[in-house]
């Protein structure tokens, strides 16, 4: 935290709402420019939706917004929230984690029984469980879980932790109707204190609100 708005917020000492700032982003896939000149600010309060067809660049943009990969040009700033007012150790003690990131290709090791994973989650993740794990999964090996059950377990552990920034890439994929509604409600609640961005190639759920960005493959329409 050495320059830019992050350090200013830190020096203020006041916790402010987590805000995700993208400035003049350019993202390339090989030689192809998939996002160019993207400037955007998203503050906690509502879920932001990133909608577009396959190949439009949603996943690449999400990874850059999560700061897992650098942009070809421009920059992403994560401003405010726990980590600006706490040292990492203190934020850790409070159960805070700055970024949560999910991609549907994340999977569980098949040899592990589901209960081992939920126990790991119980020890790593304090407090509330927005997507409660299904205890009935019990001794099933993860390899024997349905894809939906597996994704729900993974998502549940990410959502259970206090986050300043939550970036979920296709979280609705493989979920049943009930689980989708549950997820939408959970995201709406979490967005009050976290900057939440959801990428989807489907339509935004009926019950959702918040800004929608449409990626067309040639640009972004807000």
């Amino acid at each position, binding site marked *: 935290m050495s320059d830019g708005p992050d350090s200013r917020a830190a020096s203020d000492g006041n916790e402010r709402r987590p805000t995700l700032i993208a400035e003049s982003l350019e993202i390339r896939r090989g030689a192809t420019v998939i996002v160019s000149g993207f400037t955007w600010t998203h503050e906690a309060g509502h879920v932001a939706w990133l909608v577009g067809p396959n190949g439009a660049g949603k996943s690449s943009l999400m990874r850059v917004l999560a700061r897992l990969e650098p942009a070809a040009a421009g920059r992403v700033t994560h401003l405010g929230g726990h980590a600006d007012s706490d040292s990492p150790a203190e*934020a850790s003690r409070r159960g805070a984690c*700055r970024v949560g990131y999910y991609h549907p290709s994340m999977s*569980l090791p098949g*040899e592990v029984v589901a209960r081992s994973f939920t126990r790991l989650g119980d020890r790593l993740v304090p407090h509330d469980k927005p997507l409660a794990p299904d205890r009935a999964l019990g001794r099933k090996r993860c390899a024997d879980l349905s894809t939906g059950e597996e994704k729900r377990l993974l998502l549940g552990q990410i959502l259970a932790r206090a986050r300043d920034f939550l970036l979920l890439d296709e979280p609705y994929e493989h979920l049943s109707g009930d689980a989708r509604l549950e997820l939408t409600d959970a995201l709406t609640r979490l967005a009050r204190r976290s900057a939440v961005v959801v990428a989807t190639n489907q339509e935004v759920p009926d019950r959702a609100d918040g800004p929608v960005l449409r990626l067309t493959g040639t640009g972004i329409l807000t």
Partner: protein
Amino acid sequence: MSRGYAARGGRGEAIGPLALFELRRGAQRPSSLLALLLLAGTLALSHVDEWRGRSAGEGFFGHAYLLGAIAFMRYGLAADRRLRFDEYLIVNHVRPATYLSAKVCAMAILLVAYGAVAVVLEAAFSGGGFADAAWLALAFTLAAWMFAPLVMLVETWADTSLPAAVVLLAYFVTVITIYMVGGTLAPLDVLGITHLEPGYWSSLGPLTLRSLIGAPLAFLLVGAAARLSLPRC
């Protein structure tokens, strides 16, 4: 900027649960059962030979131990990469150092458990030579621990499910090549195994020293290299 904090109580508290998870995972792998079967089967076969009057000596313990170790010694780094489970853990829950430390802890416990099983099996098949079995198992466990950082290094860069086989093969090729070219067994001296005398506990000293000091140092170096291949956070 620091992200991806460890569990609620900090890094130290996160290693325990994750190591326990890795331990369960290691024990539940089909290859772990295969390792035990290979160990038991090879030991039993070697003693059948003894019962028929052909002395097999302790060489067969080594073969049995190595066969099993090749099957079970792995950290799951390659599998995690394939499943993006490393990214899931490191971005969302724990620091990279915690992730790697938990795997090393789990491997250490698995090696001790495997050694204990080897003692029981060897003692049972040899008709009660418990002290000799314990000496053999300790010697091979210490040697396996020396190779454990190299197994991690192989898994860091290669998508193989038998990283210990790669390490052993590379080691034997190195030993043989150096012996043929230079006429020296220096690679064996490096490990401290040229001083071993079966049944003499004091002869384990050089190997123990190297294992307890050398392996942790090697883990520090290999860990730094392994972190380069882990997701950024």
